Every structure is written in structure tokens, then in C-alpha cells.
């Protein structure tokens, strides 16, 4: 096995980190065991042909964090179906380009996150951060950066018609999202470190999505749509806090000042219990607001059964390194997805029956 250690001051280090140092070899950074930020970075050098890579589609799915696509897309899909169900004319072209723009924006944000994690060394302290495709040697960092540029351009390309037709309504939204992305990605630990992460996640994955969609439909948001937007935003925050809680140990080591890491293990666990009940309350309220009782009741019963799993998992977590920590964010994500599936299914039935 070949290893090489390069100091930060060595000009070769950038070529190894970006992956351009060789056409036939891959340099995988070795996480420092000591927990210190060392002067040098150690790389394990492997032949590219010896790396066990899955197929291209799986790699792309992993790097764009397809499992998190629901957080971005479901609020948009539900808002689109809601306004359609309320009898408003659906601007098909604008909805289509919005969907495409959001997809590419989602992809570029997560690829950018992976790229910066790798080049700044964050991935070597926390092995659960990001998609890990660069660390596994599946894609070199320079190709991920190319993916960021391409995705960003595509996102902008698809957003241009929207900005052109609804500039005055949408530019503040676009600016807010831009500030959120820059704040999370570029300024070191950025907003996450200042405890502002939750606010931006709530807004970007909840109210702003619904506001954007209502703008495309040329309607104002009503009480139900505001309620649903808050529910989606809060469910996304709940997922983020579960994720931060599962990383509480490594975040504290890295001095990442999320709300969870600052409150500590015990207080954060209590916060998550409160958040859990609040999210369930919001979901149940949203279900009763939008669905008839015969649909809402069994749906809420089903969600409650699932919600009990989250509660039980949270109760079992007795350590920052507990095995249950890995499960928690997955359960939170699934709750968001289940809530979305229920709303989408109901709204589609409503629209279909309305057309009959």
C-alpha cells in the first residue's frame, strides 16, 4: 500500500486533493487519527482500476444526495398540487422550469458541500459528512467541481424565464436563497456556526417554496397554504436537527456551533422531543385542514404509528456515539416523505375527482 504525506505549503497538495495528479491513480485522503489539524495531509495512493466503483447512475445519485431530494422537491410538488386543487390555472411551462431549476440547484448545493468538505478537510474529521464519493475514490474532486459549475448554470438557465416573467416578486426569494447557499458553503462553518442554520432551512424548504409557487400561479397564499408551508419548513428543520444531533460528537470536536452542539446532548434531546411533538401536531393539523375526515383519520393513525418509532429511537439514544444515532435522521427524513406522499396522494385524488 502506498502512502504519501504532503505539507499544506507543498504546491503538489492541491493536485492530490483535486485528483489531477495522475491519470491512472487515485489519492484518497487518510483521516488523521489524532484529532489535531496536522501540517500535512496523508493520502493513500491506489490504482484507479482497483477501486470498486458502482455504476455511473448510482454514483450520480449518491453525489447529488438523491435521498434528500424530497426535502427540496416535495414542498414544491405539494404546493403546485394544492394551488391546482384550489381551481387555479397551472402555468405548465413555468412549473416545469421551476422543477428543473430546483433539481439542479439541489444537486449543485450538495456537490459544492462535498467539494468544500474535501478540500478543507472536514470530511476527514467527520466520516459521516457528505456523500463520501470523493473519499471512496469514485469521482475525483475536480470533476465534482465541474459538476457544480454545470448544475449551477443549468439551475440559472431554467430560472431565467421565471425571473424574466416574475422579476419583482421573485428576486427577493432568489437573493435569499443565494445568501443561504453562500452563507452555508463559503464562509467557513458559516450560518451553521452562528445557529442560523435552522432559520434558513425553515424558510428555504417551506414558506419560500410555497410563496414562489403561488407567484407562478399568480395567486396569494391563503391560510391553508401558509399552514402547509410552515409544516414543511418545520419538518425539514426537525430532520436537520436530528442530523446535527447524530453528529453532535464530531461537530463539537470541530467547534461547529449548531444549536444542538451548543445546547449539548441532554438539552438537545429534550429539544428533539418537543420538536417531534410539534411536527406531528403540525402534520395532523395540516391533514385535517386539507383532507376529509375519512381520509385524514387513517392517515394520521398510520403516521402516529410511524412517529412512535422515532420517539422510541430517541429514547434509546443514551450516548453521542450510540448506534441509534445513525437511524435518527433517516427516520426524520422518512416522516417528511410519508407526510408528503399522503398529501400528494390526496391532492391528486382531489384534482382527478374534480375533473370528473
Amino acid at each position, binding site marked *: 500500500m502506498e502512502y504519501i*504525506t504532503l505539507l499544506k505549503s507543498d504546491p503538489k497538495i492541491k493536485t492530490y486533493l483535486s485528483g489531477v495528479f495522475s491519470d491512472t491513480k487515485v489519492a484518497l485522503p487518510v483521516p488523521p487519527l489524532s484529532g489535531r489539524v496536522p501540517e500535512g495531509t496523508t493520502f493513500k495512493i491506489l490504482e484507479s482500476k482497483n477501486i470498486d466503483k458502482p455504476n455511473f447512475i448510482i454514483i450520480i445519485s449518491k453525489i447529488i444526495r438523491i435521498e434528500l431530494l424530497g426535502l427540496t422537491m416535495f414542498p414544491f410538488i405539494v404546493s403546485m398540487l394544492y394551488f391546482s386543487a384550489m381551481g387555479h390555472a397551472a402555468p405548465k411551462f413555468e412549473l416545469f422550469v421551476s422543477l428543473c431549476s430546483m433539481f439542479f440547484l439541489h444537486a449543485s448545493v450538495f456537490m459544492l458541500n462535498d467539494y468544500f468538505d474535501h478540500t478543507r478537510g472536514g470530511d476527514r474529521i467527520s466520516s459521516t459528512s457528505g456523500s463520501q464519493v470523493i473519499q471512496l475514490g469514485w469521482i475525483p474532486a475536480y470533476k465534482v467541481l465541474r459538476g457544480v459549475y454545470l448544475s449551477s448554470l443549468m439551475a440559472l438557465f431554467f430560472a431565467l424565464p421565471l425571473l424574466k416573467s416574475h422579476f419583482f416578486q421573485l428576486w427577493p426569494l432568489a437573493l435569499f436563497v443565494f445568501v443561504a447557499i453562500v452563507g452555508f458553503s463559503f464562509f467557513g462553518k458559516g450560518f451553521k456556526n452562528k445557529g442560523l442554520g435552522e432559520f434558513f432551512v425553515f424558510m428555504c424548504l417551506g414558506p419560500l417554496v410555497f410563496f414562489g409557487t403561488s407567484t407562478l400561479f399568480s395567486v396569494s397564499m391563503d391560510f391553508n397554504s401558509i399552514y402547509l408551508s410552515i409544516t414543511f419548513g418545520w419538518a425539514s428543520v426537525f430532520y436537520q436537527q436530528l442530523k446535527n444531533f447524530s453528529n453532535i460528537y464530531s461537530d463539537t470536536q470541530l467547534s461547529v456551533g449548531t444549536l444542538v452542539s451548543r445546547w449539548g446532548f441532554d438539552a438537545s434531546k429534550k429539544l428533539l422531543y418537543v420538536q417531534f411533538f410539534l411536527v406531528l401536531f403540525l402534520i395532523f393539523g395540516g391533514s385535517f385542514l386539507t383532507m376529509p375526515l375519512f381520509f385524514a383519520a387513517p392517515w394520521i393513525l398510520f403516521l402516529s404509528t410511524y412517529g412512535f418509532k422515532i420517539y422510541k429511537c430517541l429514547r434509546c439514544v443514551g450516548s453521542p456515539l450510540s448506534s441509534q444515532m445513525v437511524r435518527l435522521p433517516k427516520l426524520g427524513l422518512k416522516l417528511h416523505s410519508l407526510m408528503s406522499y399522503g398529501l400528494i396522494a390526496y391532492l391528486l385524488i382531489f384534482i382527478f375527482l374534480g375533473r370528473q
Partner: protein
Amino acid sequence: MNISVYDKRDFPPYLPKLNALYGDLFSGGKGFRSKLIERVSGHLKIDKKQIHLMAQTIEFIHNASLLHDDLIDRSHLRRSKPAAWLKYTPEYAVLAGDYLLARVMVNLSRHGNLELLQYTSEMISDLLEGEWIQDSLIKDWGVNQTQLDQVHKLKTASLFKWCIRSPFICKGGYSKQVHDELEELGCLLGLLFQRSDDLLDYGIRNYENKAVLGDLKSGYVNSFGCFLIKTMTPSQVTQFKKIIQIEDLHELLGKEVFDKKVAEFDESNKQYIELYKHHLQILLNVLPEHEKSLILDLEKLSDVLYWRKA
């Protein structure tokens, strides 16, 4: 030099049972850590008084952690003798451990090397943190290797890091790169030692015929246990939790499968031995010429600690 770290004249004679307890505690043990200090310090030409201080410091801290560990785990034996908390009282075991740590602080502050004092305090803090987190993982059968390594870095590796780095801190004048390499080397040695110790708990390379399955019986999944559980069926895991003899484990998995697992585990740990040798090479390049002989001594350690070769 034969370092004797315990001298009853260093402790108050009016505290009942204290010196008897320490006499029992320090009469056993191989003193590996103090020997490591001695070997490293010899290459740096550090004077005997400082070597003695460092050796005493590490043995006091290590033995303090053993006193507390045995009480926390309710272990009945330590080095084939009744554990201190059982022979004396739990209260005395706790206080004796605390007293050793206090003594370390007294000795180091009198010595006056602030950097060494700071590094030692951080090490003790890591050790206690590791112990706390390890205790919180009891009966957590789903814990993974990455999570266990975090505990081992705090508990085991911190002591080895200290042994390798403290002589350099004592002497002073070394660059950050030297200290970074020493930290990595210490961590790797600690990890290898812990993995070997975890194998020993399953009777592998148990040349001294120590009691086995102690971790499993107290509900703690060590690194080898975690490795075995990864490929077990849920019913096998249920039976695994109840095992009290090593023969039961061989019967559960099949002796051939068990031996294959040991070989796979050894293979997976070879990467750490290779990484250790890589970092030794880096250290060789940055050490002054007259201290490079240290590398020859350090080179053998990975085999000694992991394969338990003499």
C-alpha cells in the same frame, strides 16, 4: 535503567490502607508505558530525573484509570489478584485513583514545564471522556467500528500518544510537524494495541492465559465483537449476547468461520501497521540526525503491540 515508579515515601503514611492498596497495585503490571518513555527519552538524551517523572506520571495515570475502571465494570480480578475495590472498599478505590491523579498534578507543576502540564491535563480529560462514552455504550449491540474507534482514540490512544510525545515536550524545540507525526504514531499504536486487546478477549494470541470474554459479559461490544456481529443473523446475535464460554462462540459460528473472521480482522488491521510505518518514515525525515536511531526502536512496536511478539 529500571524505573520503579512507586515509592511509599511519596504518600502520606497516616492515610489507612492507602500504601497497602498502592503496594498491591504497583507490584503487578509490565510497566510497558514507562518502558516506552524510557526508550524514547534515551534517544533524546533526557536526564534521569525527567525520565523518572514522566514514567511515574504515565503509570500513575494508567493505574488510576484501572482502579476506576475495575469499579465501573465491577471486575473482580486485576492482574490475577482481587481488584482494589473488592479487597478494600469502592470508596477507597475511587479516592486512591483520584489521589494518584492529584499527585501527578503536584509533581508536574513542581517540575514547571507548563506545556507538559497542559498536555497531561488534556490527556487525562480525554481518558475520562473515553471512559464516560464507553460506559454509555454498554448493551449497545449495534455500535459500529467508527464509533468504537472514537472511544479508543480517547481511552487508549491518548496514553500512547503521551508516551511518545512527552519526552519531546520535555526537551522542547521541535516543530509542529514533528509533534503532528508523534501524535499520529501514538494514535496508531494505541489503536493497534486496543484491537489486539480486543482479540485477546476472544482468546486470540492469549499467551498469558488471561480471563476471556470480559467485555462481552459486561455487555460491551469491543472492536472484534463488532466485526463478528456485522455478518451475524439476528438470531445469532441474540445467542451471542448470552455466551459465557469461548467454546460456545466457536459452536455458534463454527470454528472454521471463527478462524476465518480472525484472519479477516487481522488483514483489515494491517493497513494501520502500514500507515504507522509510513508516519515513521516521515518522522525519520524531520528528526535531527543524532535522534534518528529512535526510529529503529519505534519500528518494532507495531508488531509487539498487535501481534504480541516479544
